[in-house]
């Protein structure tokens, strides 16, 4: 082939997703997607018993792959890409909610992305993961309340559901991914990803501080 492969300039290389990133994203999305198909059954049961309030408890788990992938790779666009991919894979691999789960995943991804963008992709701690997990909630809540007719249930039920969703988003999506990400980074299998590089930098900083 006569096409010449051009070397990608260094500044673009930082932002662009490498093949390793894409494969990691795909794997995280499928782990989450497979888990979600099982949780979807539980979710239907919770909807049948307790309507919008009980389903809200597990809601945070839906966006965990996005927050986790962004926390590990730490590049713009990762959260949105991961969750959209998780949505598409869920449709193909047989989630009974179909198109609903795709739209839910996309809106979640948008929220998480905005959450990390607010910190300009520079802060990766309890606060930024909490904000990202929290922002996964509102957009989908608006769509879902119209789609499933929650808005007719009265403002009290809606508010309770919303608060539960926010708490679930912060804990199950934001903080749980930070915990899982830190455990994974601690086992040294994430060498080469930004989470490992930045951890090493932090550790070095601490050591130099003690020696001084």
């Amino acid at each position, binding site marked *: 082939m006569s096409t010449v492969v051009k070397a990608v300039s260094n500044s673009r290389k930082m932002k662009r997703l490498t*093949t*390793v990133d894409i*494969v990691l994203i*795909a794997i995280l999305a499928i782990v989450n997607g497979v888990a979600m*198909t099982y949780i979807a059954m539980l979710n239907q049961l919770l909807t049948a018993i307790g309507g919008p309030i009980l389903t809200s408890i597990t809601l945070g788990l839906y966006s965990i792959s996005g927050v986790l992938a962004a926390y590990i790779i730490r590049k713009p666009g990762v959260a949105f890409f991961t969750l959209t991919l998780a949505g598409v894979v869920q449709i*193909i691999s*047989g989630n009974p*909610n*179909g198109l609903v789960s795709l739209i839910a995943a996309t809106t979640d991804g948008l929220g998480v992305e905005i959450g990390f963008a607010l910190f300009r992709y520079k802060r990766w701690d309890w606060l930024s993961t909490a904000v990202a997990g929290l922002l996964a909630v509102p957009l989908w809540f608006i769509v879902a309340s119209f789609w499933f007719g929650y808005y007719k249930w009265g403002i009290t039920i809606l508010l309770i559901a919303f608060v539960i969703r926010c708490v679930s988003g912060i804990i199950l999506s934001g903080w749980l991914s930070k915990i899982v990400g830190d455990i994974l980074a601690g086992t040294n299998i994430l060498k080469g990803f930004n989470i490992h590089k930045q951890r090493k930098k932090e550790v070095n900083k601490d050591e130099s501080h003690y020696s001084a």
Partner: protein
Amino acid sequence: MSLSFQFHEKKSFMHSLDPVTKLIWMLCISVLVFLYETSLPQFILFTIVFSSALILAKLSIGFVIRGIWIMLLFSIGFFILQVLLVPGENVLFTMGPLNIYSESVDFALAITLRILTIFTTSLIFVATSDPRDIVNSLTQKMKVPYRYAYSIFVALRFVPTLEQEAKVIEAAQTIRGVGKQKGLKNKALNMKRFTLPLLMGAVRRVRVTANTMEAKGYGAYSDRTYIRKVSYTASGVMFGAVWCITTVYLIVERII
């Protein structure tokens, strides 16, 4: 995962359509179910979708029912809950201390049918679209860069591997005497003991897979060639156009 929700090779009108047209069809139906809040239009829509599953996609009634029965079961629960909780004005009948309003029954019926319609639509889409065609139409028709679109293949390829790995982890833990325990705290510990090795095993595969892909030239060129070509058919374009026009007409009529 229920077996109904997988691609089944067959010859039918829906199978011959390309995924993009089917996606447009799905979007049209999603918009339409979103438009109405009374049970009659929802019922008409459900009948249309259900009959197109039988006639256009040539799926058997048993197949569709098998696909949606779990959903049907839960919809009934959701239906009862809505009938009891959604406020209304005209009392339809009284059941003990409870007043059943006709508005809430109507609304609950509409929402239940809406969920079933969306569910059946996704069933048709999944059962009639080859995943390879879905990815190919993403890259060929919707111009998604193939580096990103192919991540769907990567993800799907790992489903059996992960399932097998999950079985191995479970067996290994059972052999060592760490079986499933009862109680909420133990359940949480079980989750941790099971999920983390699974996740770590998966992450370990990442680098090897990525290296293999790059060694074969993945992502080296901005474009690539395809064995399978996805093309629009005349009847497919007609089908999409009819649905789009109907949807737009109904939206305009609804607003005015």
